[in-house]
């Protein structure tokens, strides 16, 4: 039962909240979110900078050049490669269910071949290889369960990681070479837990799985020609051999060959 005083409070709050609408905040929210995503990705990639490299800490600075910075890995018509691969998985007609399988990027098939058999894998969002700062990147967010109730993981493919971290939003020293930092000693020093690290050979990529100080788990393969395949899985829904098999799959790597 509501007392008269509570009713007064309720009515007063309604009146107090009457105000002209705020300016639209959506554009800035999107651009800030893109900048944060890019920063997180770059920080993760450059985590080894201060450790590896003969003890010489190499400073790097992240900048946002205005609110209209390039749109991360979001595919756009204007910048897309002239290939059918660069397409976005669509959700029509139901925006809150998984993407329509016919629109899934084709590389998802390679990923799914490694997954334990179940009938509730969904693609929450994803796109094929699209131009991004001189490289090409593809990404897919996969859910287990229609609402992701059994977990989610992300697979990202990048043709040239070096280009992606030296684009217009990220200033790194011109001589900086990501390959010099992606070594097992450096990665081991930078991660709280390392599950495996295998150095690259002529035929195999560097394969790494570890958890950093923020608690983020990274499983990735990095090739001498700077191809990069990463799987983020913070729900521990996939086991390490499965994740390793996905990121080191030769078919996925072949898709990234220019």
């Amino acid at each position, binding site marked *: 039962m509501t007392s008269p005083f509570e009713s*007064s409070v309720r009515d*007063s709050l309604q009146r107090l909240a009457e*105000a002209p609408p705020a300016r639209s905040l*959506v554009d800035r*929210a*999107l651009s800030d979110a*893109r900048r944060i995503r890019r920063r997180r990705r770059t920080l993760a990639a450059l985590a080894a900078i201060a450790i590896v490299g003969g003890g010489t800490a190499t400073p790097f600075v992240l900048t946002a050049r205005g609110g209209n910075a390039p749109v991360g890995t*979001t595919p756009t018509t204007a910048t897309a490669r002239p290939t059918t691969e660069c397409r*976005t998985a669509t959700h029509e007609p139901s925006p809150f269910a998984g993407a329509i399988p016919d629109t899934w990027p084709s590389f998802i098939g390679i990923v799914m071949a490694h997954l334990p058999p179940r009938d509730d894998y969904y693609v929450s*969002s994803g796109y094929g290889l699209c131009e991004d700062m001189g490289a090409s990147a593809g990404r897919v967010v996969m859910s287990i369960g229609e609402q992701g109730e059994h977990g989610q993981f992300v697979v990202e493919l990048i043709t040239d990681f070096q280009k992606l971290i030296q684009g217009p939003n990220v200033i790194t020293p011109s001589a900086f070479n990501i390959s010099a930092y992606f070594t097992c000693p450096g990665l081991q020093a930078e991660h709280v837990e390392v599950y495996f690290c295998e150095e690259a050979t002529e035929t195999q990529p560097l394969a790494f799985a570890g958890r950093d100080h923020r608690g983020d788990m990274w499983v990735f393969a990095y090739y001498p020609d700077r191809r990069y395949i990463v799987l983020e899985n913070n729900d521990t829904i996939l086991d390490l051999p499965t994740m390793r098999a996905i990121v080191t799959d030769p078919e996925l790597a072949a898709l990234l060959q220019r």
Partner: protein
Amino acid sequence: MDGQNEREFREYVAARQDRLFRVALLLTGHREDAEDLLQTALTKLALHWTTAARATSVDAYVRKILYHQQVGHWRRRAPHREYATAAPPDPGVVDDPATDTALRVTLSRALGQLTHRQRAVLVLRYYEDLPESEVARILGCAVGTVRSQTARTLARLRTLCPDLLSTMERT
């Protein structure tokens, strides 16, 4: 965020921004702070849109971000800020401008003397009209805590704003 998700996010914000802004206004007590708070919350929502859009209720998801942001980050800010404005605040359309303005000023001052958590409980219960169980879920506490917090907040408001009832009756 891909094109599809961005479109969905834009549609959501276009439909809900005004309502969320009013909540932020009540939580912070000032337009600029409300815009800052909502901007931060929407950025977080954009970051997690893929997950949020799959949640049972996007509103519940964004509400949680908004209130946690307010109770967490904003409590570390100075409690009182002064603002220079070019024009007096828009009183809105009212039957009796003088009484309504007095009511706004009185309640606004009273809200400013509550803790951020008390303010959050008040807005959730009496502006958003949510049940205690939902308030508890959003604030991450027990239903009993919400109940006692609400009772204490109302008692404090009665002290700070004893003529609220009579003022409301006059408007």
